[in-house]
Structure formats: structure tokens, C-alpha cells
């Protein structure tokens, strides 16, 4: 079975990618300097105008980087992981919004001062007489809408579908702003090299999107012709989907990785769901196991045998080839057991190599119990179940504490620790593992977030 390339064996490293992003940022700033960005720092008007140019260039460049981060490019995902990319995307997004907001203010006020106009008159002048500036104004509005709907406060009030739909307007914003960049951008109107370089940045990002958001899923789906074969209940609200298709053995997937699944049903074809495989791949089927959480997953209950499935992937760094030590501790919280379950068979066998700590609030929520016990017994490992709600009579203290883990797994700092579960549990585990002196590079998290 194929395995994703080991991070250390990749042709270029994460540092190379960061360097590439920084070099291009420097080129963009150099463009501004070359066109007199620094020479103009005389009067307040000139300073503002030059500042307006710089914020526009950097802000737009950062927006392109943002799109690139979300292009599902495997070359990025293998180096940074999807949640690392998403985190950067989020922070860059707020940076872009601030920079573009500054660009609008600096440029309008700078021009107004230079021309002796009032700011309002100048704003009107800009929108009505400068080519494509009206479009760019609409783009700014869309950008702010996307940013505001992504604030945590707003995000909580919107369904995932609504937020996602509104988020796609960021593409439109980038497209609408493009015209005025070339038509009135001081750096581009007179300099063919700068202009072509700028266009090349857009083309490069566009090609990544096309290749990995369109081409890749289409190719995968046509080749493997996936269909839901069977739906098996595992626990209250939890089902396993068995997905069959052609040439499954050709899928280069490791235990612990996930695909983005698109179930082609009437009411759900526009969503993708990031779900791990919950069992190693076989020639006949892929298995994923899903709990009815979030508006996306709940929609899955309407699936039936025969539903066509499109996939993207595999993604994820939560794999056995990240293992540094010969022994592992697997910590599962609730449905977070799924990628860990698929990981077990890929841990090199050795006595006592696997300890599984399975945390759930009720016994009914424990899935794969027989499967897990057989697998782990065969590998002479150990399972500890920590069941119950915290703060109840039977479980007054948090069973997931540094002391408890130390007692259950005395050699924890000599193991690789793979954790998957709800966000709150993962945060607690981070602190606990630090307390237990588990080295950073032996800790592996898989976050279940809908990105």
C-alpha cells in the first residue's frame, strides 16, 4: 500500500516555501521602491499616496497567498498540514482587510490633499472618473463582508453553509479589484516587467486552484467511480459508510489521513466533508465513520447505498511515518477514534508498542470496541477506557489529567503521542503533555474542524 511521502524526503522543505513567499513579498516591495515609493515621502499628500500604494501591493499579495494556502495543494498540505494552513489563512485574512482598508483611506486622503479637494469630493472623483475603481470599491465591500462574517462572534451565528457561501465572495473581490490595479496602479501602468510579474502571480495561484480544486477531484472521481456501498450503524448517531469503487488499491493513502468527501445527493452535493478513513484501505472498500455533528454531517443521514461520491485527497500528516520512537500512545476523544483506528495497523509491531486511551462520555458512544480489542490484543498492547461525564458522582475528577496519564502510561515521555478528539480535549491534552515532558516533535494532533 502506498504511503504519503515522508516530510523529510520531500524535494523542498517548509522553510523553502516560506522563503519563496518572503522573496516574492520583497519583490513586491522592491517594485514600489523602484517606482519612487521612497522618493515621494515629502509632503503629507505624497506620503499618504505612497503609503496607499504600498498597503495595496502588500494587501493584495497577501490575499493571493491566502488563496494559495486554501488551494488544497498537496505540496503545501504535506509541509504545513491543513489546520496550519487554515490558521495562517485566517490571520492573513484580517491583515489583508486592514491593509486594503488603509489603502482606500490613504489613497483617497492623499489624492484629496494633493488636489486641494475635500475627501468626499475626491472619493467621488475616484469612483466615477478612474477606470475600474468602482469595481474595486465593490471588491472592498465584499472583502469586509467576508472578514466580518469570519469573526468568531459572527461565525457562531451563521450556519456553515451560509458562511461558506459568503466566503466564496472573496474570489469575486479579488477578481473585481484586478482591473484597477493594472489600469491605475502606479507600479504597473508604465512598467511592463512589473505588470507581467503581477499577472504571473495571479496565473500561478489560479493554476494551483484549477489543478487541485477542480482537476484533481475530477480525475480522482472519474478514475475510481466511488459509490456508497453500505451504511452500518455503529453507535447512537454514528454510522460507518463503506464506499466501493475501482482501482482502490491505487489510492496513495496512509492510516490516519483523510479525504474530502462530496456526496452527490440532491441536497448536499455542494458540500465537502473532511473525514478520516476509519479502517485501512482494502481492495473492495474505503470505510469512514461519521457522527451526526454540524449541519454538514447531519445532512449525511439522507445518504443511501448507491449514492455517488467524489473525493479529494488524501490529506493529513497524522500518519505512522511521523513516528520518532518505537512505542506510541493513542489518545481518542469520542468519535476522534476514527483516524487512530486506521493508524493501529501501521504502527510497527512490537510488544507493548501501542497503548490506547479512549475517552468517551458514555459506553454507548464507544465505537469499534470489538475491532479495537482484537487488534490491540494481537499486538500485545493495552486499552484504557475512560468513560463518564466529568463532575458526576462516578467521575468527580477529570480522568484525563497529567497524574492519571502518568499512572496509566508510566513511560509516556518515551512514546509518540497521537491525539484526536474535540477541540477542548485537544487543548487540555496540549497542556498535559507539556506537563509530562513529552518532547514537542513526538506529539501529533489531528483537529476535526470543518475548514
Amino acid at each position: 500500500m502506498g504511503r504519503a511521502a515522508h516530510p523529510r524526503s520531500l524535494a523542498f522543505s517548509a522553510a523553502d516555501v516560506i522563503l519563496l513567499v518572503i522573496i516574492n513579498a520583497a519583490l513586491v516591495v522592491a517594485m514600489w521602491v523602484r517606482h519612487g515609493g521612497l522618493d515621494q515621502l515629502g509632503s503629507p499628500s505624497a506620503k499618504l499616496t505612497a503609503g496607499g500604494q504600498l498597503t495595496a501591493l502588500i494587501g493584495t499579495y497577501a490575499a493571493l497567498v491566502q488563496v494559495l494556502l486554501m488551494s488544497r495543494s498537496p505540496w503545501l498540505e504535506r509541509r504545513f498540514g491543513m489546520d496550519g494552513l487554515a490558521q495562517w489563512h485566517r490571520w492573513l485574512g484580517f491583515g489583508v482587510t486592514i491593509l486594503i482598508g488603509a489603502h482606500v483611506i490613504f489613497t483617497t486622503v492623499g489624492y484629496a490633499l494633493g488636489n486641494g479637494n475635500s475627501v468626499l469630493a475626491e472619493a467621488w472623483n475616484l469612483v466615477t472618473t478612474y477606470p475600474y475603481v468602482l469595481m474595486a470599491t465593490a471588491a472592498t465591500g465584499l472583502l469586509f463582508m467576508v472578514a466580518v462574517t469570519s469573526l468568531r462572534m459572527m461565525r457562531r451565528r451563521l450556519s456553515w453553509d451560509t458562511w461558506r457561501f459568503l466566503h466564496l465572495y472573496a474570489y469575486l473581490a479579488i477578481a473585481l479589484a484586478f482591473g484597477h490595479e493594472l489600469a491605475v496602479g502606479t507600479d504597473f501602468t508604465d512598467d511592463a516587467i512589473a505588470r507581467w510579474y503581477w499577472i504571473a502571480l495571479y496565473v500561478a495561484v489560479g493554476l494551483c486552484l484549477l489543478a487541485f480544486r477542480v482537476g484533481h477531484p475530477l480525475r480522482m472521481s472519474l478514475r475510481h467511480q466511488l459509490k456508497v456501498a453500505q451504511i452500518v450503524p455503529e453507535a447512537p448517531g454514528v454510522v460507518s459508510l463503506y464506499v466501493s469503487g475501482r482501482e482502490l488499491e491505487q489510492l496513495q493513502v496512509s492510516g490516519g489521513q483523510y479525504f474530502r468527501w462530496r456526496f452527490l445527493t440532491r441536497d448536499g452535493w455542494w458540500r465537502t466533508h473532511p473525514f478520516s478513513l476509519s479502517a485501512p484501505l482494502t481492495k473492495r472498500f474505503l470505510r469512514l465513520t461519521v457522527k451526526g455533528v454540524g449541519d454538514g454531517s447531519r445532512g449525511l443521514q439522507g445518504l443511501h447505498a448507491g449514492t455517488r461520491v467524489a473525493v479529494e485527497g488524501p490529506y493529513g500528516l497524522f500518519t505512522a511515518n511521523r513516528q520518532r520512537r518505537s512505542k506510541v500512545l493513542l489518545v481518542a476523544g469520542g468519535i476522534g477514534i476514527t483516524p487512530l483506528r486506521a493508524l493501529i495497523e501501521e504502527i510497527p509491531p512490537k510488544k507493548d508498542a501501542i497503548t490506547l486511551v479512549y475517552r468517551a462520555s458514555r459506553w454507548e458512544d464507544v465505537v469499534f470496541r470489538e475491532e479495537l480489542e482484537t487488534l490491540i490484543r494481537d499486538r500485545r498492547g493495552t486499552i484504557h477506557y475512560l468513560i463518564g461525564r466529568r463532575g458526576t458522582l462516578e467521575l468527580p475528577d477529570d480522568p484525563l489529567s497529567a497524574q492519571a496519564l502518568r499512572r496509566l502510561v508510566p513511560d509516556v515521555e518515551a512514546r509518540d503521542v497521537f491525539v484526536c478528539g474535540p477541540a477542548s480535549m485537544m487543548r487540555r491534552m496540549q497542556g498535559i503533555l507539556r506537563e509530562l515532558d513529552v518532547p514537542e516533535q513526538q506529539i501529533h494532533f489531528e483537529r476535526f474542524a470543518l475548514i
Partner: protein
Amino acid sequence: MVPTRAAVAIVATAIAVALLFSFKTPAQARPHTPAADVSQATPAPSASPSVSDSGAPTPTPSPTGPTYKDGQYTGQDFPNQFGDTQVKVTIAGGRITDVQAVQLPFDRPRSAEISQYASPRLHDEVLQAQSAQIDSLSGATYTSDSYAQSVQSALDQARV
């Protein structure tokens, strides 16, 4: 297939984008520049002032500044990154009485705006200074410099 709300939003967006694309800026409604009427780089002074006058004392010679022969003199074109800048200087009674822009950067709206703003101010500055020694206008540094250079080249032709 697609929820109604999403379908409505997509259609509304498409219409809005179409409207945005149909909007044209008032076809470069820029002030007319008399760029066409003079294009030689170093034209001879206009014929109107008689050369025979040259020996006669100028009516109101400025005691300190240089004196100029009466006439119209077109300065050289001093292009900068925004476009061409060229002026025509009128001398009457040995003094600079008028400066007209033959060419100013107008090919882009931003340049046009700057030129429109800068032209009368630079004109006044030259008349006041009676020379090309003028201060740069903030926000129009390039245009000011080129303007001053072109004035200087016109004055060089007019020098007695």
C-alpha cells in the same frame, strides 16, 4: 438542487457584476491640452518681436534679474515617468508675462488630475519668480521639476 436563497444570491450577484462591467468612466473627460500645436523640441522664437529692437533698451528692465528678448519661446520637452512636460513662455517688455503648458502628463486620470491642479499654480509661481527657480508643488514633484526645466530652456533661448 441549490437552495433558493443561494440561487437568488447568485443571480443578484451576476446582475451586479454585469452592471459594474457596464459602467464606464466618462470617456477620459480630461481638460484639453494643446499638445498638437507645438511639437518641435527646440523651436525658434516666434517671429513677432522684431530683431531690430534688440539694440534698444528694454522698457522696464529688472535691475537685478536677467533680461529677455520679447517674444514667445517654446521650451524643451522634459519627460518624466508620468509623461511629457513642455511649456511656452511669453516675454513682453523683458518680463515673463505668461507661461502656457504645451504638454503635461494627461494620459492617465491620476496624472491629469495632478496636471490640472499643478498647471495654474506653477504658472503663477514662474510669473512671480520671473525665473525658473520655483518651489516644487507637493504631490506634483515630478511635474514641477520638469515644468521648471522646460521654463529654463525657454528662458535660455530668450536670454539677451
